[in-house]
C-alpha cells in the first residue's frame, strides 16, 4: 500500500462530496479555456483582416502633408534610404514587413501613371545585419497570415497588395496595377517601356480598389537610378503588429527616426486593441471568479473532510503516522483534484470553444494544446492553495481525539 492508495480509495469512497468542488473547478477552467481559445482565434482573424488591409504604419518626410493614406507616398520630398537600415538594424519588435518606396510620375504609350520603386524581400535577407535584426521574423502573438488553422487564401502574386512586400523582383521586371494593365492593354509577359528602359511585365496585380491599381511597381534601385534621385525614398510602409503598436511602437519609431513623420491607422489599431483588452479583462474576471468560488468551494470541502475524518486521522497518528504524512495525504488529494479538474476543464472548454466559437465569434476555432498546461497549472494551483490550511489543520490534529469515545 502506498500513500496514493489511501487517497484514491478515500476519493472514491466519498466521491459525491468531492463532486461539488470538482464541478466548480471544472466549470471555471472550462469557461476560461473556452474564452481564451475563442479569443486567440478571434484575434488572429481580426489581425488577418488588418493584414489584408495592408500597411498600418507609414513613415513620411517630416514636412509631408498626409491627405490620403494610400496616396501619401506621392510626395515631392524625400528622405534617405538609410532610414530602412536604421529600422532594420534596431531591436524594435513588431515590424512585420518593411516596404521602402520611391514613387515617380511616368508616361508611357500616352498614358500617365505612377512608377513605384519597391525593395524585394530577398534583398533584405541578403543583408546579414538586417537578418540579425529579425525584420522578417514574426513576433509571437503578432502577425496574422500564418495563424494556425487560418491558411492564407491569396495567391502568391497578390502578396504585394496584402503584405506590401514581394519576395523577388529583378531589375528589369515590373508589376502592373489592374487599371494600368487594362488601360495599356498589357498582360503578363509583355514588355513595357518606362523612363527609357524596357521592362518585362512579370505580373498583373488583382484589383484592390486603391491607387495601387493605377501604379506600376519596379525594383527600388532601378527606379532610383532611372529617376536620377540617388538612394532616397518617399515613404516606408510598415505592417506593424497591433500588439506592439499598442505598446508604443509608433513612439519608438519616432525616437529612432526623429527627422521623419510616423503615422498609423489609429482607428483600426485602437479597435483591435480595445477588443483584445476586453477579452483579456473578461478572461481575468473569470479567473478571479474561479479563484474565489472554486478556491472557497475546495477549502470548504477540505475543512469538512478533515472534520469528518478526524477519528481516522487520530487513528493513523496513534498507529505512528507523522504530521507530514497526514499533510501529504491531503495535499495529494488536492493535487489529484486539481489535475482532474484541470484536464476535464480543458476538455470541456475546448469542446465549447470549437462548437460555439464559430457561432459566437464567427471564426473557425481549433483546439489549443498549449492551454492544457495553463489549465493544469491554474487548477492545481488553486486546489493546492485552497487545501493547504485544511491539510495543515489535519496534520496538527490532536491524536487523542481517536480515543475520545472512552
Amino acid at each position, binding site marked *: 500500500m502506498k500513500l496514493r492508495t489511501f487517497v484514491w480509495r478515500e476519493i472514491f469512497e466519498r466521491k459525491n462530496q468531492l463532486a461539488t468542488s470538482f464541478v466548480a473547478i471544472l466549470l471555471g477552467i472550462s469557461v476560461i479555456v473556452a474564452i481564451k481559445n475563442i479569443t486567440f482565434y478571434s484575434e488572429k482573424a481580426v489581425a488577418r483582416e488588418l493584414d489584408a488591409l495592408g500597411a498600418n504604419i507609414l513613415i513620411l518626410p517630416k514636412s509631408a502633408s498626409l491627405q490620403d493614406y494610400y496616396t501619401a507616398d506621392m510626395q515631392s520630398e524625400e528622405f534617405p534610404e538609410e532610414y530602412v537600415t536604421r529600422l532594420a538594424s534596431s531591436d524594435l519588435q513588431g515590424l512585420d514587413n518593411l516596404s521602402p518606396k520611391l514613387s515617380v510620375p511616368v508616361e508611357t504609350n500616352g498614358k500617365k501613371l505612377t512608377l513605384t520603386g519597391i525593395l524585394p524581400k530577398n534583398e533584405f535577407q541578403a543583408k546579414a545585419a538586417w537578418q540579425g535584426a529579425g525584420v522578417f521574423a514574426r513576433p509571437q502573438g503578432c502577425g496574422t497570415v500564418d495563424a494556425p488553422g487560418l491558411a492564407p487564401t491569396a495567391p502568391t502574386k497578390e502578396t504585394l497588395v496584402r503584405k506590401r512586400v514581394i519576395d523577388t523582383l529583378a531589375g528589369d521586371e515590373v508589376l502592373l496595377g489592374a487599371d494600368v494593365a487594362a488601360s495599356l492593354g498589357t498582360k503578363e509577359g509583355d514588355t513595357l517601356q518606362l523612363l527609357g528602359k524596357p521592362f518585362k511585365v512579370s505580373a498583373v496585380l488583382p484589383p484592390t480598389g486603391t491607387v495601387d491599381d493605377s501604379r506600376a511597381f519596379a525594383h527600388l534601385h532601378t527606379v532610383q537610378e532611372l529617376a536620377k534621385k540617388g538612394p532616397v525614398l518617399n515613404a516606408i510602409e510598415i505592417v506593424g503588429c497591433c500588439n506592439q503598436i499598442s505598446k508604443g511602437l509608433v513612439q519608438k519609431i519616432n525616437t529612432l527616426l526623429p527627422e521623419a513623420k510616423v503615422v498609423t491607422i489609429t482607428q483600426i489599431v485602437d479597435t483591435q486593441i480595445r477588443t483584445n483588452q476586453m477579452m483579456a479583462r473578461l478572461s481575468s474576471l473569470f479567473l478571479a471568479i474561479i479563484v474565489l468560488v472554486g478556491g472557497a468551494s475546495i477549502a470548504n470541502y477540505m475543512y469538512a473532510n478533515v472534520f469528518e475524518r478526524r477519528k481516522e486521522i487520530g487513528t493513523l497518528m496513534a498507529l*505512528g503516522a507523522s504530521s507530514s504524512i497526514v499533510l501529504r495525504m491531503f495535499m495529494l488529494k488536492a493535487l489529484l483534484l486539481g489535475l482532474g479538474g484541470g484536464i476535464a476543464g480543458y476538455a470541456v472548454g475546448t469542446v465549447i470553444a470549437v462548437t460555439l466559437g464559430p457561432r459566437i465569434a464567427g471564426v473557425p476555432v481549433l483546439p489549443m494544446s498549449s492551454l492544457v498546461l495553463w489549465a493544469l497549472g491554474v487548477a492545481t494551483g488553486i486546489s493546492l492553495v485552497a487545501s493547504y490550511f485544511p491539510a495543515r489543520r489535519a496534520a496538527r490534529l490532536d491524536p487523542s481525539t481517536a480515543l475520545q469515545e472512552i
Partner: protein
Amino acid sequence: MLVMQSVTKTYAHRDKTIKALDNVSLEIDRGDFVSIVGPSGSGKSTFLLMFGGMLSPASGTVLIDGQSLYDLSPERRAAVRREKIGFVFQTFNLVPYLTALENVQIPLFLAHLSDAEQKQRATALLERIGLADRLDHKPSELSVGQQQRVALARMLANDPPIILADEPTGNLDPETSQAILDFLQEVNKEGRTIVMVTHDMRAAGTAQRTLRLVDGAIVNGHKATSQETDFPKGDAV
C-alpha cells in the same frame, strides 16, 4: 518498562479544573499484563493516551524503556508509537474505505516497508486470526467480531513490544470477547506488555494485575479476583 512518575493531568471545564490524573506513580514491567478499571471519568482514557504519547501530563514524567516520552518531539513520539506500541480500540477504528488486508498494512506502510512485504506480513497475521478468506472485505462487510480481529491483526503488524488496548471487548458478545481475551493472553505470553482499559471485570480478570482508578488516582493494584468481577452498580460505564 512503562513508568509514570508523579503524573498529574488537569482539564479546564466551564471555569472548573478537573483532575484526570492525580499524582500517579507506577511501573509496569516488560511482559506484564495490566488491566485498568474504574468508573466513567475516572481517568482511564487519560492514562492510556499518556502511555501512547498522545497526551502530555501537566506535571510528572512518562517513561518508556527509560526514555522520557514527552521530552521527545512530536515526530519522534510518532516514531515510538510506530516502533513500540500497538493500539486496539473499543470501536476498532478501522479505516472504512480500506480492505481488511489494507487496514492491517497501515502500520507497515507507515514503517516504510515495501508493498510486497506489507502484503506478506498482513496476510500472515490475518491468517493467524482466522480471516484468511476475508482479506479483500471492507469493514462494513465484516461482522463486529471479525472487525475486532482485523484490529488485533493491525495491532500486531509492526510486532510491537507494548500493546495498549482500549475496551477491546466493549462491543462484543461474550463468546467473541473470550476469544479476544484469549488472543491477548496469547500475545502476552510472547513477551509483550499489555495495558488494557476495561470496565468488564471478567476481562480484567485475565490480566496479571488490575489497577483501579478512582478520581484520577490509583486506589489499589493487585491481581484481580473472581469476587471483584461483580463490579458495583454505578461504577460501570
